């Protein structure tokens, strides 16, 4: 007898429909055949399923059985087909009769005792179910992320037995409501780390605020121990709270990457990713035979922090350029081409010189001028092109750290940034750009007009500081953000001057 159920396959972060067909009672020797490009984990599902079936009180098929995962050209990965295969066997062997009428999608890993374990991509599967107007049965743990999708019935199940009773209409499973999800319970949960803990570094904080307010990428230059990482980690906390759509994007990537499988901290917040500088291009961009999200996608709608920027392989930095421009990354592999979102804020950090002690009052820097210049030149022009703000983080003395008074908390900064973002959203309502940093040339001309005196000032600065030409538009955009923070319609001279101050890496300095 033939049974047919629906499940899903993940490609990148998108799920597409898979039919799980189980045919039992075939003539021939007793065998269990699994087709449809299964990987090792899918193939092993036979053993898990048989054990689970017997422990729940059912029998494995006693005849030759074929299981087909269609469409046959897509590679199937992971243990998520355990549940539909088990149900297919039960239906095909006539051990249960489905009374539930509405169409359903199934995914879940089975334990030997018949309990259901969480799977990757629960959120993407719910989105797929929504598209086909189906309900979805998921392991309870995975249901929490899926429940955030509107207008889909997500049935959380703990065991195979529960699913069987539900399908036979002997027992009801109440669909999980978005409001009951872990994530919703921690909606807008505050970040455990706060800017109030960062003592001193007023200039860096100011630069960070401008960067976040305008969506600008940021480079911190400072000796080891100046608190660059500490500050970077706190940036997601001052970014505007993620809209539910943004959060669904964040979560669907994390879910597809398996991060949500056993995440301790399930709250609605922006990601912070800090890959080590030895990371491979694939690790950064995403890839693998079945394309999986890389660090830049995991940082989508959040912060990608690259500490020790000059230490990163040149190739790794070069591949960042396109995603930084487009906000998406396209990965082509033999298994197909996927496009993943990667709209992150880049926060990079570097030492001021090869030894790291330039400007450190305690330690002598013995780097020569050419060494320092070479070290700084390691950051290629095209990448520097995409970083609007450079700021120096001075080394901090112990007395500064021990200062009792707390600094401004993240929430205060976030409120200011939120107002500034609203202002930009209004002004850019009719353009593709959502923030100042993403303005195109036409928009820059329209919104960053300088008065004749300020134009004069700008040319003077370009010339005297030997600023590179690429700095020009960066400065205008940053000046626009500074003006927005000050709630000023026009870019005033002091806004412009401050913006110029944040271009340390492509100007002349005194050695």
């Amino acid at each position, binding site marked *: 007898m033939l049974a047919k159920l629906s499940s899903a396959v993940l490609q990148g972060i998108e799920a597409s429909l898979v039919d799980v067909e189980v045919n039992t009672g075939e003539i021939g020797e007793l065998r269990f055949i699994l087709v449809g490009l299964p990987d090792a984990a899918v193939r092993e599902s036979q053993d898990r399923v048989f054990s689970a079936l017997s422990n729940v009180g059912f029998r494995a098929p006693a005849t030759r059985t074929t299981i087909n995962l269609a469409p046959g050209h897509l590679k199937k990965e992971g243990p998520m087909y355990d549940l539909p295969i088990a149900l297919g066997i039960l239906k095909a062997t006539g051990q249960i009769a489905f009374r539930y009428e509405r169409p359903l999608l199934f995914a879940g890993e089975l334990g030997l005792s018949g309990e259901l374990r969480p799977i990757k991509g629960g959120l993407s599967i719910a989105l797929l179910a929504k598209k086909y107007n189906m309900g979805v049965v998921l392991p309870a743990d995975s249901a929490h992320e899926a429940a955030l999708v509107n207008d889909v019935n997500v049935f959380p199940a703990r065991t195979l037995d529960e699913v069987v009773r539900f399908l036979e209409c002997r027992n009801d499973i109440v669909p999980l409501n978005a409001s009951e999800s872990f994530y919703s319970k921690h909606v807008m949960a505050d970040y455990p780390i706060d800017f109030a803990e960062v003592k*001193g*570094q*007023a*200039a860096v*904080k*100011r630069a960070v605020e401008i960067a976040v307010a305008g969506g600008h990428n940021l480079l911190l*230059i*400072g000796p080891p121990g100046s608190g660059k990482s500490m500050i970077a980690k706190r940036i997601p906390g001052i970014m505007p709270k993620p809209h539910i759509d943004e959060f669904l994007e964040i979560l669907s990537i994390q879910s597809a990457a398996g991060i949500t499988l056993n995440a301790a901290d399930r709250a609605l917040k922006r990601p912070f990713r800090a890959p080590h500088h030895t990371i491979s291009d694939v690790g950064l961009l995403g890839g693998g035979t079945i394309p999986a999200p890389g660090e830049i996608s995991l940082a989508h709608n959040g912060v990608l922090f690259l500490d020790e920027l000059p230490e990163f392989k040149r190739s790794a930095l070069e591949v960042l350029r396109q995603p930084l421009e487009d906000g998406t990354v396209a990965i082509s592999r033999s298994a197909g081409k996927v496009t993943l979102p990667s709209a992150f804020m880049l926060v990079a950090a570097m030492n*001021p*010189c090869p030894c790291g002690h*330039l*400007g450190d*009052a305690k330690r*002598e*820097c*013995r780097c*020569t*001028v*050419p060494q*320092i210049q070479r070290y700084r030149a390691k950051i290629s022009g095209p990448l520097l092109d995409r970083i609007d703000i450079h700021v*120096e983080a*001075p080394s901090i003395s112990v007395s500064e750290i021990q200062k009792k008074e707390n600094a401004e908390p993240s929430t205060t900064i976030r409120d200011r940034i939120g107002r500034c973002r609203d202002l930009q959203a209004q002004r850019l309502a009719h353009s593709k750009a959502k923030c100042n940093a993403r303005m195109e040339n036409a928009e820059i001309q329209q919104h960053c007009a300088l008065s004749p005196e300020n134009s004069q*000032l700008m040319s*003077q*600065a370009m010339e*005297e*500081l030997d600023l590179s030409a690429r700095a020009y538009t960066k400065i205008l955009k940053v000046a626009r953000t*500074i003006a927005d923070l000050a709630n000023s319609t026009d870019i005033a*001279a*002091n*806004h*412009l*001057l*401050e913006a*110029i*101050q*944040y271009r*340390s890496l492509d*100007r002349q*300095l*005194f*050695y």
Partner: protein
Amino acid sequence: MQEPLTSREAVLVLNAVSGVGPVLYRRLMETFGSPERILEADEYALTRVEGVGPKTAQAIRDWATTFSLSKEKRLLLDWGAVFLTPDDAAFPPLLRKIYDCPLGLYMLGDVMCLKKPCVSIVGSRRSTLYGISVAKKLAAGLARAGFCVVSGMARGIDAAAHEGALEAGGSTLAVLGSGIDIVYPPENKELYDAIRQKGLIVSEFPFGRTVNRQTFPMRNRIISGLSEAVIVVESAIHGGSMITANTAGEQGRTLMAIPGRIDQVSSQGCHQLIRDGAILVTSVEDVLEELAYGAQQLEMQLPSASKPRPVMSLSPLEQKIYQALADGACVGLDALAERTGMPISDVASTLLLLELKKQVVKRADGTFEARVFA
């Protein structure tokens, strides 16, 4: 059979042979009596001299394979340079006295500079505005007083010293760590040309020799060796100028140092020298007095003591920031905001204005320094 070499030619050859330094040369001379004889000696006789191994002996015997005398002589002619040996009357007498006096010196420019008493001004490549301005003023003052200002044509203090002397219309002498035809660092090309025109460029290295780790300390001993006094303007504890200070001490030359701020890494070397007995110098007069040159000997009038810099019209905000920097310290944005009580945004924008008005510079470490000294 080619013509026998003259004594000067033989020294030119020996100076270029690898493995033959000043000390070994002196020993060879004690054995053979003249440079020509050294080149004529057979390998056995050479190896009997203490310190000459088979490799060096071989190098001396086969000098023609590594060195073209005719080319070197042609280059000397083309460049209008001379090669002086300690036997020449024009060779600087002070340098002749040092333990490791070079075999000879290539000289390019005005050799009359050597007639003047020499004082060297050396210091860090990475300097502050303070150091630069002190070096310049001191060099100008000494040049006006009739001294030839000696330095190494490196970045920073060295370059400032040469410039100061040239601007005052005085003499200056640059000792290179490369052949006299090589300009290092390349950005000092203009300075090199100016010194070639109005001063003297000196090196013990043959044409085409490039700089390396060894040539700088060798160059330093000549800087101090040429000079009656060595003035260290700015140096970190491990700076290259400390080597010059050391050789000055060994050669028995007067060592002077310019004090700086105690919180400035760039002056710590100078403070160390002063602690160890170097003479603290704050003006040209200090130098003259120490060297026992009476003011009557001065060819020109001394520059008047540092007069305050003419202040451009500054806005109250600019004035406030400038005042906060007026003590000569190198200060970052944070510290300036604290000193002035102004918000970071105002400090950042005002500093840029001051920079455009050339009152302040931004340094590579992210700090700012005011042009307090003229």
